[in-house]
């Protein structure tokens, strides 16, 4: 009996060693040298490449496919693979293992700021024209892909006459009884909303006073429910699961378009945006930069804004949209002047700590 156990161990160990040998030989390709050739403004010849575009799925990625990757693929002779949703752990694993399969990733700006030059490469500004973008949205490793907002969508059946007008009303369950829903993430906007409801002015929001924010959130804790996926927020609005839902623009708009009798509160709505990035070790870096240049151009941005109420980041874009969509665009002056901007640099530095505190508060 002992003999056969010994042999099985030896054979298995041999197989293990053989399997283990293959893993470490690939190293991440050196980054940064591929962008130098396009400095004259002529587009590099990238036909024949196959790139992977990664975003958040759903109607957003469908619209991106329709207005960005497909026209670009046709014009430049490249092929696109769609993947998603964006998963930060996957990016880290890919870059660490030197096996990067993703080329262009749509992600949150705080992560792009946090991981610049660690997991992401700097954007090649000789290829990507950043002059038409709002400068505060551009960072070393990321350019904005679109602008959206997080706002309070309230049940107009219940609160139609005498609707909520600001975040204080979101936290007032006496005047507006009913459930509240927020994104289950520290940077979902609930902390900023709580501070604003407690009377903090926009300029004083950061650094976030956690104690004050959590104390305010405690006042509605019994009525508070959480959503983890955008689709859940949309479903909550459509089924009326919560009477006030703090949701993303695209989800709120789609739910209302589908017939939900909910209305947004623009006063204090939080301005957020997504960014395009390229991971370190991507095998198609030059092509990725060319794509980003196209996707942030006027044509693609106009197209996207006409499909979904995500505001274009290119000042030349001129979307023609229907009334309902137009009433949702964050760049509309009446809306943008009421909005509050989330400080992505602060979040890049403090997300980890905020996450720990958020978990303690929600889990307790």
């Amino acid at each position, binding site marked *: 009996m002992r003999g*056969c156990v010994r*042999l*099985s161990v030896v054979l298995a160990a041999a197989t*293990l060693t053989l*399997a283990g040998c293959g893993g470490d030989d690939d190293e991440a390709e050196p980054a940064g040298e591929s962008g130098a050739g396009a400095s004259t403004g002529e587009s590099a010849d990238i036909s024949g490449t196959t790139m992977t575009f990664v975003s958040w799925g759903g109607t957003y990625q469908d619209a991106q496919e329709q207005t960005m990757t497909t026209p670009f693929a046709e014009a430049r002779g490249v092929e696109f693979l769609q993947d998603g949703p964006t998963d930060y*752990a996957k990016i880290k694993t890919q870059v660490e293992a030197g096996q990067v399969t993703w080329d262009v990733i749509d992600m949150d700006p705080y992560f792009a700021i946090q991981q610049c030059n660690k997991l992401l490469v700097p954007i090649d500004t000789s290829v990507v024209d950043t002059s038409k973008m709002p400068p505060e949205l551009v960072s070393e490793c990321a350019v904005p892909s679109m602008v959206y907002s997080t706002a309070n969508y309230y049940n107009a059946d219940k609160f139609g006459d005498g609707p909520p007008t600001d975040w204080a009303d979101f936290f007032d369950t006496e005047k507006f009884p009913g459930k509240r829903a927020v994104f289950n*993430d520290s940077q979902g906007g609930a902390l900023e909303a709580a501070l604003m409801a407690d009377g903090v002015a926009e300029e004083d929001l950061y650094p976030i006073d956690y104690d004050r924010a959590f104390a305010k959130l405690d006042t509605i804790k019994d009525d508070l429910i959480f959503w983890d996926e955008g689709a859940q927020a949309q479903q909550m609005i459509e089924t009326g699961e919560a009477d006030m839902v703090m949701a993303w623009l695209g989800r709120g708009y789609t739910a209302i378009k589908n017939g939900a009798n909910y209305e947004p509160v623009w006063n204090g709505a939080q301005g957020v945006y997504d960014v395009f990035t390229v991971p370190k070790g991507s095998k198609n870096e030059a092509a990725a930069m060319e794509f980003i240049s196209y996707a942030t151009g006027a044509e693609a941005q106009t197209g996207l804004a006409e499909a979904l109420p995500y505001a274009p980041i290119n000042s030349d874009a001129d979307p023609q949209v229907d009334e309902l969509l137009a009433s949702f665009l964050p760049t509309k002056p009446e809306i943008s002047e009421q909005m509050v901007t989330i400080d992505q640099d602060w979040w890049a530095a403090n997300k980890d700590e905020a996450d720990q505190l958020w*978990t303690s508060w929600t889990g307790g």
Partner: protein
Amino acid sequence: MPGWLRQAFGDRWLLLVVPTLAFLLIFFGYPVVQMLLRSVQEPTSGLGNYELFFQTEVYVKILRRTVTTAIIVTVVCLALAYPYAYLMSIVSRRWRIVLLAVVLLPFWTSLMVRTYAWIILLQDTGIVNDVLERAGIGRQSLIRNTLGVTIAMAQILLPFMVLPLYAVMQGIDRRLVQAAESLGANPAKAFLRIYVPLSMPGVIAGATLVFILSLGFYVTPALLGSPQNAMLSQLIVQQVSTLLNFGMGGTMAAILLAVILVILLGISRVVRPSAAYDAVGPR
């Protein structure tokens, strides 16, 4: 065959175990060992992650809650599965197939679909609550709490309990129960003293399986529960996916593994470990 090989393998058919062993070691053992190593290497070397885990009150609370929820789900599953498996063992062959199909059919649909179906059924504005309201009981909170999670997990894990129970029960000779009654025991006593102990191997197999599965279950508690009853699996996902803290994620996984091993050890003190494998009793 060379002498040393014949000597090492008393029976050459034992060589057939090598591919499976290698597969498990490479695709299961190696990644698990990797994660365990990361838990003591990232972000700093040593047991810092483990210390941090047990010092953080909310983490320990979540661990306790995970074990408690798993126990509740196991008990509920057992309560539902035992009569069902018993019924399956006494009916005719045709009905047995029907009963088996009823339990297995949901098993063949996607887990995500089943979980979302439960959300739609149990939500505040859902069908179950509509029925409860018409019946005069009033709307109850059926999701975002342990109740909803238990209901959904019990249904999803039911086949894992029913099948081992049935496998054992079909091998139990019911004439033994009749014999006990003829010797003077009332039906209830005969059932409890003869049938139930004979069905124990199935109970242990099913309960162990369901318990271990519920400890690690992610999708259903994540979607049906609220953060207030988060389980350890959700915490691990947060550490790995959001915080990119693979070290802490590995630590939590290692602790969960340790909990399972300790509980299995405890069970094996009470019951013979091989009792779970005795599928068929003496005929």
